[in-house]
């Protein structure tokens, strides 16, 4: 069962799953080991989904698309913003979450679970991993973002 770090700011509670790695923008990568050690499942963080608001539409690049780390993986339109989401790893998309098309709201409901975006067959996991941060480090990034938003009010 996934464990989470948690923090509360104002009326909002944000969770960070401890079993995966993160980009600073809030995209996570979960290695699918032991079954598929070269594959990672990717999705967005609880913080990013709460900050962005209800998802109206989500378009993930198609299966078979080759990506470099940092390339656009998906476009997301929410009630507040249009976002480009970038791949945390390089490789080839081998699976896209089909449930997102009829029900993009699952990204809001279960960002670390059923609301995943895609599975990527990585080409350079160790190299990409070095550019990602772990859960405590992402928590610090997130707290800093929250503090900026509170200060801006």
């Amino acid at each position, binding site marked *: 069962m996934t464990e989470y770090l948690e923090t509360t700011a104002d009326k909002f509670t944000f969770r960070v799953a401890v079993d995966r790695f993160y980009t600073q923008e809030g995209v996570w990568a979960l290695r699918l080991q032991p079954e598929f050690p070269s594959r990672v499942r990717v999705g967005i963080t609880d913080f990013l989904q709460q900050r962005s*608001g*209800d998802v*109206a*539409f989500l378009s993930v690049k198609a299966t078979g698309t080759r990506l470099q780390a940092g390339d656009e993986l998906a476009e997301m339109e929410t*009630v*507040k913003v249009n976002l480009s989401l970038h791949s945390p790893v390089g490789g080839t998309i081998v699976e896209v979450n089909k449930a997102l098309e009829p029900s*993009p*709201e699952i990204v*809001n409901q279960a960002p670390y679970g059923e609301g995943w975006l895609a599975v990527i067959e990585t080409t350079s996991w160790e190299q990409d991993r070095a550019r990602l941060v772990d859960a405590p480090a992402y928590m610090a990034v997130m707290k800093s973002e929250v503090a900026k938003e509170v200060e801006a009010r």
Partner: protein
Amino acid sequence: MTGEGTEVVVIPCSGIGKPYGTVARESAYDLCDDLRPGATRLVALAKLVLGEQEARERVRSCPVVTIDGCKLMCASRLVTHSGGQVTHEVAVLDVYRRHKELKPEGIEVLNDEGRKLARVLAEEVAVAVDEIRRSGAPSGAGHA
């Protein structure tokens, strides 16, 4: 509580600051002022927030349609909190997902797409209102 003479209470989102709340209200005005005047009565959500007696009695005694702007579903929740029952609830986002070309923008004044989305929503709710008045519940009652 139903029949051709039944008045259906319509309660839209009262949220300000986002286009989806504005779409909810504009669609309620279209519905109550233009599409189904006489069959519907618009009740401001703020009256339920304040606990106004007349508004509370209305939602307790009439079928109620709520039009919410976001997932907080304030209109639906306040009807229940006030002792009423929601006969039919609609979320603007769900209707927008079916009409991607109608992206609402603007808060005080909606763009053309937002106005059209409000109209589409109002027309859908008008059908639900007719069914409520005819049979007591719209087919597929619940989330639109």
